[in-house]
């Protein structure tokens, strides 16, 4: 029932896209997109550590081309790119549901996912700055979402 309402909301916004305050479904969709993006970043992390950077490659056009080619064809990096594309499509749908100044900072929740993934998947330690950072980001997103509803209720000057 809830799913149907959500889907109808999304379809309505995609078809008609009236100017509106940022819808909750859009905020949630961006948070989901950031989970996809964080997975892409995790794949990048694995891929980039196996990538060797030769700064002399930057001095010529061919060097830059080969750098990009090597970057793109590393398997983990390629998978990461694929997830980025999927996340991008999801983002475009989400953008139909609200303002860029609210939705783009929601993207920062990817750092939350990266910290959590680092801890559970890559055996990285949690420390006070990371935990504090995660809490601040979540708090910032909540404040932003609340500020967004206040902005839409302001009478235009």
């Amino acid at each position, binding site marked *: 029932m809830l799913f149907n309402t959500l889907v109808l909301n999304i379809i309505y916004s995609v078809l008609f896209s009236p100017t509106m305050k940022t819808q909750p479904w859009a905020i949630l969709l961006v948070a989901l997109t950031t989970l996809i993006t964080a997975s892409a970043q995790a794949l990048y992390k694995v891929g980039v550590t196996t990538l060797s950077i030769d700064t002399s490659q930057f001095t010529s056009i061919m060097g830059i081309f080969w750098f990009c080619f090597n970057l793109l064809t590393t398997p983990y990096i390629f998978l990461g790119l694929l997830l980025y594309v999927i996340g*991008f499509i999801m983002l475009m749908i989400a*953008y139909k549901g609200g*303002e860029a*100044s609210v939705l783009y*900072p929601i993207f920062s929740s990817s750092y939350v996912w990266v910290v959590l993934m680092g801890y559970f998947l890559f055996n990285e330690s949690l420390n006070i700055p990371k935990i504090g*950072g995660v809490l601040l980001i979540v708090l910032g997103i909540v404040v932003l979402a609340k*500020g967004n509803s*206040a*902005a839409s209720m302001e009478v235009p000057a």
Partner: protein
Amino acid sequence: MTASWAIGLTVLAGLCGGAGAVALKEGSNRLKISLPELAKNWPLILGVGLYAGSVFFFVPALKGGEVSVLFPIIALSYVWVALFSSFFLGERMNKPKWFGILLVILGVSLIGLGS
């Protein structure tokens, strides 16, 4: 020590990310599911280019610098989005929104410090 080229690339990546977000927002406003319409959707194409640019600038920068320095710089992209979206898209900013952005920047910086 974080090389200055890494910092420069990160500043560029942040600006591209911020500008790209606003371009993508405008592109999503004009989104029509037909191939010729998509090709005419120049904000969408610009947004994709800027978005890809920010990624391509940031990935090498991360190799050449420390996240404790680079994360706060890339987090400034949220400020750029607020400024660009007010100017180009007429999105209104208010104190809670700015405060939320500040909290997010602080949070990202802390994560950089802890990584």
